[in-house]
């Protein structure tokens, strides 16, 4: 008698499993979906540094950036079942973060304050520009790099919100134009235009430093 055929493995489950095997971030998020609390904490520790930095640059205020970061992860938890392994986890996370940041910037009572380099007792030192090897550059070159980094951060903060988001997502967070378009809710062509205009503005603002 022929053996009973085995139950077919659901296609969705096997695709998710193969993506999880290929991408540790996907595997991590699948554990969060399964209710693994330790996985959620791991997720927070892995992505919160980048999300906080992104939020600070986009929102331009430390306190609000921290609130946005917290809101993002609570949202991630609440809607964890909506994540699909077909998309990169970082794209999903930065889409949520961008939405929260842009909503925050739309609130009329919030005025963008560029306080990225306020003295906070050394906290910024960890976030300061990564200097080249001190044996390879002169002190003047080092100071010049720091000044350029400061001016660059200020120039980014002065961009219109969507241009700022587009340049941050594409340059800092490794998202391709398709991912940036998904995060901003626009087309790839619109993203290219945003990045181009942002680049032109930054070059104009920093022409004395570049």
């Amino acid at each position: 008698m022929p053996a009973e055929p085995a139950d077919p493995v659901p296609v969705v489950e096997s695709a998710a499993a193969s993506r999880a095997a290929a991408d540790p971030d996907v595997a991590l998020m699948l554990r969060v979906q399964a209710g693994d609390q330790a996985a959620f904490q791991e997720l927070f520790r892995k992505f919160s540094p980048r999300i906080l930095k992104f939020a600070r640059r986009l929102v331009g205020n430390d306190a609000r950036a921290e609130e946005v970061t917290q809101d993002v992860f609570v949202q991630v938890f609440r809607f964890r079942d909506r994540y699909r392994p077909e998309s990169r986890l970082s794209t999903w996370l930065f889409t949520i973060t961008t939405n929260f940041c842009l909503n925050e910037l739309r609130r009329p009572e919030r005025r963008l304050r560029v306080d990225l380099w306020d003295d906070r007792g050394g906290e910024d030192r960890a976030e300061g520009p990564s200097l080249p090897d001190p044996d390879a550059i002169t002190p003047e070159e080092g100071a010049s790099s720091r000044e350029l980094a400061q001016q660059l951060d200020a120039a980014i903060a002065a961009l219109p919100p969507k241009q700022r988001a587009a340049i941050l997502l594409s340059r800092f967070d490794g998202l391709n134009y398709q991912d940036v378009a998904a995060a901003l809710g626009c087309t790839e062509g619109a993203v290219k235009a945003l990045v181009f205009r942002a680049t032109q503005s930054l070059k104009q603002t920093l022409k004395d430093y570049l």
Partner: protein
Amino acid sequence: MRCERAQEWIVEALEDTLAPRRRRALDTHLAACPSCRQEIETTERLFGALDALPIEAEVPVRLEQATLRAVRIAAAEEAERQAERAPGFRWFRVMVPAFAAAATVAVALVATQRSATSPAPASVATSKPAPPQVAKAAPRKPESEPRVAAAKPAPRERTQLAAVPVDLPVELSERPDLLFALPMLHNLDKVEHFEKIQTTVVDDDMGTPSGDTDSNG
């Protein structure tokens, strides 16, 4: 190619996303246009400076703690919403207390009957051994009848269920510590016919670990 078009394509060229045909056209233009060559060099320096900026912030411990606390609250709210939505749980919340009340009445009646017909004090599975007194009955019981102490099940008399029933809502099946083997629930069919209580012996054998039947509750 005009310089405006060339400058539009410079960013894509530096990000290596420009289509090959356009890239060739741009290269041809750059070879002949010093202004655009300077433009592409400036853009390269800008991108280099952007890439040198830190992409991670140091996350304060209080932010992590506040976030995890907020998530725990969200998880508790979610569990509560799911419990309220479960129809089986609603049935359970309404009917089990009703059965428990009926069981208490039955226990009281049995205890009364036994104390009336037997010298030994009636044994109530879920109450501690007591001198012959009538059980504290349900609210409608006549005040004149004597009472027994602790008809309400004492916590230490409860026996944890060995196996969780399969037809429970998910939220209850995940909380086996809430499920106790109330002896009278095993005799609910007897509660329906009060005339049988006089001649029916309550089965107190709940399969306790020792296997003993505790006739005194």
